[in-house]
Structure formats: C-alpha cells, structure tokens
C-alpha cells in the first residue's frame, strides 16, 4: 500500500531527512520551495539568465549528492545558497581565465576611475518608486566587474564577514576590503542620478 505524503505541509527539516533517505519527491518539494531564491542568487552573481539557470540546477544536483553532509547546523536554504555561491565563483573563475583582462579589472587594485571622485553627499530615496529603484540598482550592479559584484553580493545580501568572503573568493581580507570599498564607490557614482532625484523630492 502506498502512503500519500503531503510534502507541501512538511517543513524543510523533515523534507531534508526524507530526501537523505532517497525520497526524490521530498527533494523536489525543496526545489519547488527555494528555486527562486537559488536562481536569484546565481543571477545576482552571474548577471546572465542562462548561466544562472545552469548553475542553479547544478547546485541542486550537488546538494542532492551531498545531502548526507547536511546536519542542520544552518538552515537548508543557507546551506543551498553557499553551494550556489561556490559554484558561481567557480564558474566566474573559469570564465575569467578565458577572457582578456578588462580595463576595469586592471584598475581594480589601484581603485579605478572612481578613486579620483570626491565623496558624494547622500540623501534618502523615500519618494522613488520601488520597482524603478530596483531596476536602477540592478543595472548598476550589472556594470560592476565580477569581483566587485561578488564581494558586494556576499557582503550585502549574504551578510558575510570579510573573513568569510576572503575564504570563498580565495583572496586576502585586505583584497576583500579594497574590492568592497571600490564596489560601493562605483555604485554610488552609478546611482548619482538616483541620489539627486531623491534629494529633490
């Protein structure tokens, strides 16, 4: 006799335990539940729909293969996100090796063009439409080099400390600090219009 399990009503922890025993339906429910978050994280790092889809799917496959390593110390979605981030970083490293260093990357250590820019006086953006704001931020993030964007995503979205970012990105803490600083400065420059707009309202 087959027992019908209502997977949708189960919490992540229960689903993970079932999946660890080989229950693919439980795992499928986890995928359904967190697919947008995982895809979104991959996209925020890769800035390409197709690459984000491929990497996020690979992340789920890796997660299935390593489910026995998950002991519930962090939430399942946090664990999944870490796997996704690592795969994104691997993907970007491989991609970078195939590309000629861009002007932006060459200037990274020296701070690039934004080094010369004076600090900008900021104002709140209370009056702006949220969708418009998101779009502008999204475009600005897209214009960052992958190193700057990655450090930004890991720090601002994943709330990682410098030390953790350095470990993930296989670089020194000093490099993380530098990259984060210039990423923020560049974002500030790219969003100058937004600041002016919001200051007028």
């Amino acid at each position, binding site marked *: 006799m087959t027992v019908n399990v209502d997977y949708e009503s189960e919490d992540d922890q229960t689903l993970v335990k079932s999946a660890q025993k080989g229950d693919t339906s439980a795992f499928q429910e986890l995928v359904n539940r967190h697919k947008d978050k995982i895809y979104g994280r991959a*996209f925020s790092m890769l800035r390409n729909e197709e690459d984000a889809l491929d990497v996020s799917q690979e992340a789920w496959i890796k997660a299935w293969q390593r489910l026995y390593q998950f002991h519930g110390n962090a939430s399942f979605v946090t664990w999944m996100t870490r796997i996704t981030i690592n795969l994104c970083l691997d993907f970007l490293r491989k991609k970078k090796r195939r590309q000629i260093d861009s002007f932006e990357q060459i200037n990274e250590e020296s701070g690039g063009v934004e080094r010369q820019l004076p600090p900008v006086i900021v104002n709140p953006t209370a009056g702006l439409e949220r969708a418009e704001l998101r779009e502008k931020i999204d475009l600005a993030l897209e214009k960052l080099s992958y190193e700057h964007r990655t450090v930004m995503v890991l720090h601002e979205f994943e709330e990682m400390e410098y030390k953790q970012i350095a470990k993930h990105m296989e670089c020194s803490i000093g490099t993380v600090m530098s990259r984060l600083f210039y990423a*923020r400065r560049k974002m500030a420059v790219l969003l100058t219009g937004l600041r002016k707009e919001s200051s007028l309202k």
Partner: protein
Amino acid sequence: MTQDSDYIQIQSLLDGELSAGDADKMRLEISENPEWKNVLDELKWTSEIVRSNETCRILPVDTEFYWLQIARGIGPVGIVQPADSHKESTVSMPLVWLKRCLQLGAAVLLFAGIMMFLDQKNEPRNAIAFGDTEAILNEFGELEIPEGNSSFLIQSPDNEMTVVWIDYQMDSME
C-alpha cells in the same frame, strides 16, 4: 592628505569589522573631519539601498522543466523510491512470480494433456501377435475356424472390419 586606506578603515567601522578601541578612535576622527563624514554617509547609503532592494527573481522557466533537468542530473540514484513504495514493490514481487509459475504450470499441464490424448488415439488398441488366437478372440470377439480347414473368419463390428483367411491346400487344388 586622505588616503584610500583611511576610507577603507571608515568602511570597516561601518561593517563592524573594527575592534572596540579602533572603532571609538575612528568615530572621534570622523566627527572632526567633514570629508570622512561624507565618505561614511555615502558608504552607508550605498549599502542600505542595495540591501533593501535586493531583487526577488522568479525562475524564468517552467518549474517542471527545471526539475526534470535536475532529476536527469541526479541520475539512477535519484530514482530511489520512497520507503513505502519500495516496501510495496518487495511485497508484490513474490505474487508476480507465483502468478507466472502458475501460468507456466497450466500451460505445461495442458500440453501434456493434449499429447496424452493424441498418443492414446494413435496407439493400436492392442498389439496382437499374428497367430495368437486367444488374443484375437479377446479383442475381436468372433472367430470362426471351419473344421478340417486352416481357413478362418474374423468379424469385428467395433472396427467395422471383417477378415477372411482361406488356406487352400495345394493337394486339394490339384
């Protein structure tokens, strides 16, 4: 002159990466330096605006299609069934085999039956040696042997057969 390293220290204060002593020292310096204050404000604004506007992205493909790609990647291991359905399959297997055996047995019995029937039909009712008079009598029932003659007549109504044997003596013919 302010160096980038100073700005990076300001950032460390914002991100809570400075020790308590260094943080106090930095706060004091910022309060005395408008440029540093602007840098801190700018970094803070950027950080907050990015954090508060993280775009929630929706998977751009059908969920089923997305899952199928993952299921394919999982491979044979992924076909492992949940414990209940696995149990169900182990219980039903002997029944399947029993059913198959019964079908095979029935077929063998039917075949053997047909063979026996055909064999019985083709087999001579009795193997009677020529000249065995008693056996012929038992089998066919009627046997007439005229006296003083080696001729005889066999009649078998069951087999719809009549055999007449006449042994003419050459002496009498002559």
